[in-house]
């Protein structure tokens, strides 16, 4: 049986058919929660609720898209963790948060801000995923670049992977489910990668995807026979997002030795 995403179900029940209709304060009100902007110390948002009513406090000093994410995240707690007391800190949206409760609230936020039923039909109009496409979605859905990139990659429309790198190494990564999970990106950046200059130098990243040997990204013997498209984008001080897209469909097929092909 298909599991209906609760955030998407809520949006549909409110007749949301366009991204601009995702008004989080109105949605919160419908759910019995009032959103209030104030100065918060050491956190971006919190929620207090009792019975069917809640008050969501948002740090007024954050950017507009961060505030939207925080409201959606707290609505996720309101949906999943009603009647519970959680220690929570809204952080930059990353795939696979360590704490289950935070992961659930983040997942709810992602669905509320970028529901698949609005994202996928638009995404299918694009042959390839690039940062240019991600920026278009980010503007249309009013979401941060990284959250938008994660959502689009995980939509499983293009065979791609998204990696966040800092000077300390790989911070996180996520991939389209179709991108075979034997491809695990290396911890350290290869100096051949254009992301290297975005993280350690002054480069803002690539305007267009570049071709690079897959072995710059994957520590597998098999990687030497493939090339991938790489596009880096500087996202902060010493931090960059890298979008990898496969060039050769064999990379998303079964592992050669497992499917009985002769190993090269």
């Amino acid at each position, binding site marked *: 049986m298909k599991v209906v995403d609760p955030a998407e179900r809520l949006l549909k*029940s409110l007749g949301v058919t366009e991204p601009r*209709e995702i008004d989080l304060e109105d949605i919160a009100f*419908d759910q019995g929660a*009032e959103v209030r902007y104030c100065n918060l110390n050491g956190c971006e948002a*919190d*929620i207090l609720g009792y019975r069917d009513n809640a008050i969501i406090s948002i740090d007024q000093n954050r950017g507009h898209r961060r505030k939207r994410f925080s409201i959606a995240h707290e609505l996720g707690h309101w949906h999943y963790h009603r009647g519970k*007391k959680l220690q929570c800190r809204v952080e930059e949206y990353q795939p696979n948060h360590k704490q289950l409760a935070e992961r659930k609230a983040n997942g709810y936020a992602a669905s509320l801000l970028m529901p698949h039923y609005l994202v996928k039909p638009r995404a299918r109009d694009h042959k390839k995923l690039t940062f240019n496409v991600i920026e278009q979605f980010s503007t249309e859905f009013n979401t941060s670049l990284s959250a938008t990139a994660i959502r689009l990659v995980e939509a499983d429309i293009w065979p791609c992977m998204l990696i966040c790198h800092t000077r300390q190494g790989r911070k996180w990564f996520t991939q389209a489910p179709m991108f075979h999970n034997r491809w695990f990106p290396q911890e350290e950046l290869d100096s051949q990668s254009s992301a290297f200059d975005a993280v350690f130098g002054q480069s803002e990243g690539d305007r267009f995807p570049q071709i690079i040997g897959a072995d710059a990204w994957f520590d597998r013997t098999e990687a030497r026979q493939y090339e991938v498209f790489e596009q880096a984008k500087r996202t902060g001080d010493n931090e960059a997002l890298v979008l990898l897209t496969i060039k050769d469909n064999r990379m998303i097929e079964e592992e050669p030795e497992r499917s009985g092909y002769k190993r090269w």
Partner: protein
Amino acid sequence: MTDKRSDERRKLVSLADALFDDLIAASDEDILNEVAEAGGDATEISDHMRAKFEETVIQARKERMKAAKAGRKAVQTTPVVADVVDLSVARRALKKALKHEGLSMAARNETESDLTDEEVVRKYNDLIRLGVIDPDKDKN
């Protein structure tokens, strides 16, 4: 004049009822045959009706969002006046309230001892608004 119009209207309603009864009594096959005899395309008609129905459902759902917007704006126009409170009273009340069964909370800190004075006042007033704290009771 008025009586004549009412009479005509009654006849029309009776005719509509009779047609509706016929429609309900007819089998799917009979209806499809009738549509075909009249030169209509049953698939086109059903697609058109489905689209109309879906549009009506979406519009009805949008009304819920409109109601939420109107409700929120109405609440916004009512300013919330925060009570000036004795901090020690607020901290004591908050400590007790945060243990309240059924309270939902997702925050940086779970206990009142970790909160700044500003946060204590904010949460104290919020808990009054939510009906968890009764200020009159806590003052005594």
